[in-house]
């Protein structure tokens, strides 16, 4: 399993946001994307996840079989994709069945995000941070090798940030790949020898042919 981003460029409304980004991530590697607001982190992630068309370049995933790269990815965007009218458990079960490839059952996933025993509550009753944690639990109920996470720890407290870092660690140790955009330090590698690459979108030249990724 190897994720290759080759000369990727993205634009919005005809305006180039980033251009010619290339990098590769092997099993167990993570890329941390930092950068100021508006530097194009989210756009890059959405292009990689196939939710925005790339202006140029390709995203490819080795050994993905019959599946396209987006189908092998979990995308955790700014929105939590939870239905307030359904219980937490119903939300998680839906995503597990719809994504396929079951991994943890909902109760175990809730325990992993430190919210055990609240599966019966409607999602509407939760706080912003709790919703975010349920959203993270969504990544655990079905297995996808690539995690694309955009500002994952936005509404989280300190303990939950570490909890999320541990979960990403575990995912990487199981042979997963992760790409995270954040402007908070996300200590994915803390105390563990993990191959973490980093990239700062502010330093990315726009409309330039220099390939930055090979430096990583």
């Amino acid at each position, binding site marked *: 399993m190897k994720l290759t981003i080759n000369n990727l460029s993205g634009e919005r409304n005809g305006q180039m946001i980033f251009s010619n980004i290339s990098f590769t991530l092997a099993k167990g590697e993570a890329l941390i994307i930092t950068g100021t607001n508006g530097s194009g982190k989210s756009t890059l992630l959405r292009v990689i996840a196939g*939710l925005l068309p790339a202006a140029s370049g390709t995203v490819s995933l080795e050994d993905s079989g019959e599946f396209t790269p987006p189908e092998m990815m979990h995308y955790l965007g700014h*929105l939590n994709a*939870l239905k307030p*009218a359904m219980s937490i458990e119903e939300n998680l*079960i*839906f995503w597990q069945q*719809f994504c396929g490839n079951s991994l943890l059952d909902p109760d175990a996933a809730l325990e992993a995000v430190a919210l055990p025993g609240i599966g019966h509550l409607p999602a509407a009753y939760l706080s912003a941070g709790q919703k975010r944690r349920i959203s993270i639990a969504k990544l655990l109920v079905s297995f996808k090798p690539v995690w694309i996470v955009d500002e994952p720890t936005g509404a989280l407290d300190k303990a939950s940030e570490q909890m999320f870092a541990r979960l990403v660690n575990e995912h990487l140790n199981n042979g997963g790949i992760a790409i995270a955009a954040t402007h908070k330090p996300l200590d994915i590698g803390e105390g563990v020898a993990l191959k973490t690459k980093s990239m700062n979108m502010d330093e990315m030249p726009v409309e330039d042919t220099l390939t930055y990724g090979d430096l990583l």
Partner: protein
Amino acid sequence: MIALLKRDLKLAFRVGGGALTGVLFFLAVVTIVPFGIGPDLNLLAKIGPAILWIAALLASLLGLDRLFQQDREDGTLDLIIMQPHSMTATVFIKCLAHWLASGLPLILATPIFGLFMNMEPLAIAAVMATLLVGTPAITFIGAVGAAVTVSLPRGGLLLAVLILPLVIPVLIFGVTAAYGAVEDPAPFTAPFLILCALTLFFSVLGPITAGWVLRNSTD
């Protein structure tokens, strides 16, 4: 896919789902017509099938704008697009769930509303049969409109204006078939079969188009 069908049905019948607003609207239209037309029982019986069809058509337009919009607003649509399911099948299932939750109750309510219009049992049965095969076409056509207007905050009226011209054939053949069943020289089978054909045709074209539009609607 069954998970999606179950989820959409659950959501439709819970708080804010709005599955039964269509029936209430249907009830409102059908009850005020006799007040407007006057207590002429023969006239009511004569225009009954047409009134029921128009009311059902308008009622099934209500709520269509939310078909994909809610999923888009909470980020669900992004994740649905990324899954290894064909978007055509996904849209088809969502349409099916929408029809089961808001179209089928209209048909089940038709016998009661038919009595309001002083219709004979055969006419009521004919309206029910034509609605049963005709209203899915409205949902499938509406799915395309809902997909096109998914990113517009107040797309409901625009959606109605966009798809009304396309659902007029469904209305024409539905009402013609309903009259064909009760009035002697008029045929029932031919318009009824055309109505079936319209539904089958749009059950393919609608999901394909809406799926393609949704795939390209992300930003």
